[in-house]
């Protein structure tokens, strides 16, 4: 878990450097959200359970099996990018082998897809759980409501994790909803709800494990509100100093989930300075190598612009499946 958090943070920081170097035209970040994501992912079965992610889920995807190389191919928009072959902006995650579904930039649409995945699992009597992540801004959308209602009606194996970092771009929590925690709405849908300190990786693991057990035993869906900190601006096209007070930004740094987990592991005698140093170095090397590989990798071919609008004949695209069922 610690390693996943370190790698995700290293990738995230590097993409900002690449952005400043002019090598990555657009980046969007998950820094500050790592504990919530890695803790939740640890409670899932990669390749069995499903994730309908959102654009801050780098650490979640890393924990489910996305490699540094996979991710950097997306940052550089190369053909080898497993999310979209460079068609989408970076961090629009998708990874078929890990059952991370393809996602758009439209927020909350994927929550409905997760409900559909869960319905199919239930109808087909498959022991699978569908997890979806959104920011707190997405909870204002109709699709979010429609999905939670549907999941509750059918007591689906569905978990919605709201990563509440207080801001939807610049709009603060108080202008987004009339409740302190969006999990308060769970009862209104007829599902379990939990508010969790999303900076605490173990608390997130516990809450998600409980939700997974509920889902797998037929107990229905769960809404988890994970309180997290957004360290960076919304994206590389935003500057949060324009709308967040200086003291608030300084206070954020005291909420670093990575530092918190490191201190915990050191205090518990599970991590030494030496072993930490080794993890850091290995992750840095992995990122370096991923950047090298992605920079050297071929760009998508302009001649492929019109491919994959519809299914292609089997001869030209091996293994192109109908839906997502294996």
């Amino acid at each position, binding site marked *: 878990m610690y390693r996943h958090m370190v790698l995700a943070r290293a990738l995230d920081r590097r993409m900002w450097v690449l952005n400043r170097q002019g090598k990555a035209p657009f980046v969007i970040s998950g820094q500050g959200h790592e504990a919530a994501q890695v803790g939740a992912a640890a409670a899932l079965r990669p390749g069995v359970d*499903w994730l*309908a992610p959102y654009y801050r889920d780098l650490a979640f995807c890393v924990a489910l099996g996305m490699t540094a190389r996979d991710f950097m191919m997306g940052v550089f928009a190369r053909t080898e990018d*497993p*999310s*979209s*072959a460079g*068609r*989408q902006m970076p961090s*629009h995650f*998708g990874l*078929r082998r890990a059952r991370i*579904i*393809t996602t*758009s930039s*439209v927020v909350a*649409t994927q929550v*409905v*897809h*997760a*409900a*559909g*995945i*869960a*319905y*199919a*699992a239930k*109808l*087909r009597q*498959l022991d*699978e759980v*569908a997890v979806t992540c959104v920011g707190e801004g997405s909870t204002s959308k*109709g*699709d979010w409501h*429609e*999905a939670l*209602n*549907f999941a509750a*009606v059918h007591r689906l194996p569905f978990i919605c994790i709201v990563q509440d970092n207080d801001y939807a771009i610049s709009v603060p929590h108080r202008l987004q909803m009339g409740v302190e925690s969006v999990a308060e709405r769970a009862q209104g849908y007829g599902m379990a709800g939990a508010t969790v300190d999303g900076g605490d990786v173990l608390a997130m693991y516990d809450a998600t494990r409980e939700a997974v057990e509920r889902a797998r035993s037929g107990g229905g869906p769960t809404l988890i509100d994970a309180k997290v900190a957004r360290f960076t601006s919304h994206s590389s096209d935003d500057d949060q100093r324009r709308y967040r007070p200086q003291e608030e930004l300084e206070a954020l740094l005291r909420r670093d989930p990575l530092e918190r987990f490191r201190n915990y592991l050191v205090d518990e005698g599970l991590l030494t300075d030496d072993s930490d140093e080794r993890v850091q170095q290995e992750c840095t090397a992995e990122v370096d190598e991923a950047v090298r590989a992605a920079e050297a990798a071929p760009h998508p071919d302009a001649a492929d612009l019109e*491919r*994959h*609008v*519809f*299914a*292609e004949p089997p001869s030209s*695209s091996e293994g*192109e*499946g*109908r*839906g*997502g*069922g*294996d």
Partner: protein
Amino acid sequence: MPVKTLIEGVREALAEEMERDERVWVLGEDVGRKGGVFLATEGLHGRYGEGRVLDTPLAESSIVGVAIGAALNGLIPVAEIQFADFIHPAFDQIVSEAARIRYRSNGDWGCPIVIRAPFGGGVHGGLYHSQSVEAFYAHVPGLKVVIPSTPADAKGLLKTAIRDPDPVMFFEHKKAYRLIKGEIPDGELLTPIGPAAVRREGTGLTCVSWGLMVHHCLEAAEAVAADGISAEVIDLRTLRPLDREAILRSVEKTARALVVHEDNLTGGFGAEIAAIIAQEGFGHLDAPVTRVAAPDVPAMPFNHPQEEAFLPNPEKIAAAMRKLAAY
């Protein structure tokens, strides 16, 4: 061959495909016990149960969104939107999601769903039970748009749509449901999505249409035949993919083109057909490409005189044919 109604064609297609493949899943408002407000899904709930014939909450975006998710996890959803007029809340799920899933994942994921919706007017449906929405979706690459005009096509095209690996919008003219009768061949019927059908051969002008309007065009063609005008009537059957060759081949023969649709004129799909004929068939034309369509008012009124005035009918189409032939 037995003579059946268009909605019987729809019902037979659904029943046969559900029987053939247990992944086929019907969902929508009132599709269960009631069998749909037009009874298109009648009998399915009793035979296949609530799990596979699901009455959804009254929320169109999630009807489509849940169908997309279920398709990603191995089902073949056939979603019914009760009236095409109510499809708009699902526009985002259809256009931003279903239509782009294959493209944006570079072929890793597909979205094999069918979205059925009754459309069209002439049944005193007023502003919100009469609309034609095909142009919105025919504009979107990644969607197939199918509009049957006969019972046999309703069945054969719907069965093909259910087996299609990509999202298909399947619009059924609600006035045609019971008005239009025709033979449906016994046995397996799979009509390919794409090719248009020539419903009446002619040499003097080409009339291109779809849905119920095809039948109005045929009536008009019969009427003008007495005046010595030989009208060819093409039923597009699918707007996407569009059978451009069938249109251009006919125009090459007749040198005159009329496009007829029930949707309002401006930005209707007829504009695209007119543009194709103008650009690729210009050398064959002896007259300007002409369109017969509803006027540019927001929607179809409920009262009888204004509903009549809104709709193209055989008389209006025949008048346009005469004018075009005389040009």
